[in-house]
């Protein structure tokens, strides 16, 4: 039996080639025209608190938004909500994932839900999110639900296994990437004992088949991953370090995806908060939305980097807490989406009460660049 068992194991052992990213196109322009910059609260008033918005452009060009909400961040009534922006009009809000749904599908007690992250994969819409059975967010596990109808209905929730220690403490926040063979590279992070970033590789059935560590220790979480070639990527990370706080972390993959350069602090500040990035006309030309402060989440700022070697420039401020106003972490968890038509949709948590949506087109970006002096 031993020989037969191991023979079977060796015979069925899959080969895991290094993943090659399926590179996105970098549509620059958008239609030339009038600058448009407009904003609105989009999460309704179904729940007292809301957080962690994410969005995805569907194959038909609509934007589907996800967030979670409840009485408060960790309360037992948290659910994941969603709505669709189609032809400049928002659909009604739908509660798409509840504790009960996930408990029934995964055969596990679920205490709370959080941090949705979505991906269009062929004709399917994949939704990753975290659930906690015991304790705080450090006890999170990952889940995956797949929709075949752009998010109107969802298949059974699948539990992802990503850690040997009770399968806890794996969370997601930022956009996954696709590889050229259809695998998914999901940026993830840990918060139990260690606070570090890694990448999970999932096959087309949603099984975790490999993982790659970006950082270790208690330094950096919530990696925002961007491909710079089919084999290389860069990552910007939230700074959780006690020894080197206050600066946004950066790293890049070297020869292979499991070999990442040591963390480097950028000149940009980071108050232990998430940042979001998109690529513009080339892999190196970046837009980033972040909190431009070393210790407070009092603003939401747009940064621009024209080339790999250039300095970051601040080109717009979407929020700035008024003098004298005291609110803990008023603006956080920004998520920036660039559409195939070259427009931008920014979502972020506004004083924990709302998800705010800011739309700006390419002409508005050009105007911001010009006004700030970055585009001259």
């Amino acid at each position, binding site marked *: *039996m*031993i020989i037969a*068992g*191991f023979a*079977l*194991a*060796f015979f*069925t*052992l*899959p*080969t*895991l080639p290094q993943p090659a990213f399926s590179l996105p196109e970098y549509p620059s322009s958008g239609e030339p025209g009038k600058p448009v910059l407009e904003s609105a609260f989009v999460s309704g008033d179904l729940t007292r608190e809301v957080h962690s918005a994410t969005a995805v452009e569907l194959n038909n060009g609509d934007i589907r938004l996800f967030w979670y909400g409840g009485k408060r961040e960790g309360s037992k009534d948290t659910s994941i909500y969603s709505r669709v922006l189609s032809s400049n009009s928002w659909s009604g809000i739908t509660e798409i994932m509840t504790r*009960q749904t996930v*408990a029934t599908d995964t*055969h*596990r*007690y*679920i*205490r709370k839900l959080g941090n949705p992250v979505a991906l269009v994969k062929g004709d399917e819409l994949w939704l990753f999110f975290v659930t906690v*059975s*015991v304790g705080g967010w450090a006890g999170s596990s990952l889940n995956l639900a797949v929709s075949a109808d752009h998010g109107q209905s969802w298949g059974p929730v*699948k*539990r992802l*296994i990503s*850690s*040997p*220690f*009770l*399968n806890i*403490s794996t969370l997601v926040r930022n956009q996954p990437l696709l590889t050229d063979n259809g695998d998914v590279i999901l940026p993830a992070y*840990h918060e*139990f*004992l*260690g*606070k*570090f970033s*890694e990448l999970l590789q999932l096959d087309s059935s949603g*099984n*975790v*088949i*490999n*993982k*790659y*560590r970006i*950082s*270790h*220790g*208690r330094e950096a979480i919530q990696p925002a991953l961007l491909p710079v070639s089919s084999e290389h990527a860069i990552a910007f990370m939230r700074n959780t370090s006690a020894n080197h706080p206050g600066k946004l972390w950066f790293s890049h993959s070297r020869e292979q995806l*499991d070999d*990442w350069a040591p963390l480097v602090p950028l000149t940009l500040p980071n108050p232990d908060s998430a940042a979001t990035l998109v690529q513009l006309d080339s892999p190196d030309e970046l837009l980033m939305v972040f909190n431009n402060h070393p210790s407070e989440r009092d603003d939401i700022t747009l940064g621009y980097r024209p080339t790999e070697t250039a300095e970051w420039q601040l080109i717009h401020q979407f929020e700035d807490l008024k003098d004298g106003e005291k609110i803990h972490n008023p603006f956080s968890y920004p998520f920036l989406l660039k559409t195939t038509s070259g427009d931008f949709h920014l979502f972020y948590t506004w004083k924990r009460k709302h998800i705010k949506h800011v739309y700006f087109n390419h002409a508005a970006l050009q105007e911001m660049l010009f006004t700030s002096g970055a585009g001259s």
Partner: protein
Amino acid sequence: MISNIALLTGLSMALLCVAFATTLLPANKLPLAARVVVMAGIALLVMLPLSDYPGWYKVRGIFGDSSITALLFYIALVMQQTFSWKFYRDKELVLLRRLVLVSALLLYPFALGLTQFDSYSLGYANPWMLAALLAITLFCWFRQYYFIATVIAVAVIASSLHLLESRNLWDYLIDPAFVLILILTWFMPSATIALSSTRNS
């Protein structure tokens, strides 16, 4: 209607709870019938719905799935403690403890971010890890540690057949509850007494 897979998962969670009880309760001091009633009672408590869900949903939420080696060990442990049926020799338990504790030391600190090296990632389709396991299994077999050799081989087969949700070989070999129960069999006086008593019977 509960599916067969859910039922088996529930039973594995019940087995985990019974194994914990076996190491914590001085069951060997009870008559056989009382032992069986206690163990069956614990299993029933875990399997039956107490509120919205069966109790094992909570157990699984906390501990996750048991590894295959753990499940086989729990069966052997419960059978030995309850019915005095021996599936492993005493020194085999000692070696099993050592193997599992060394594995835990090699696995958990690195998986939890101690260094840039992540030993957990070795469990994904790694022929060298499989070769190391084959060597350990053959060593155990030729040294007549048949129980250990068998449970490792069954875990490897289960991994090839993807019987658990995980695709990582480590998850078929070891889990934190298994480590804890093995430590309990070492340190808990009741377990020591139970083992000694079984040894003498």
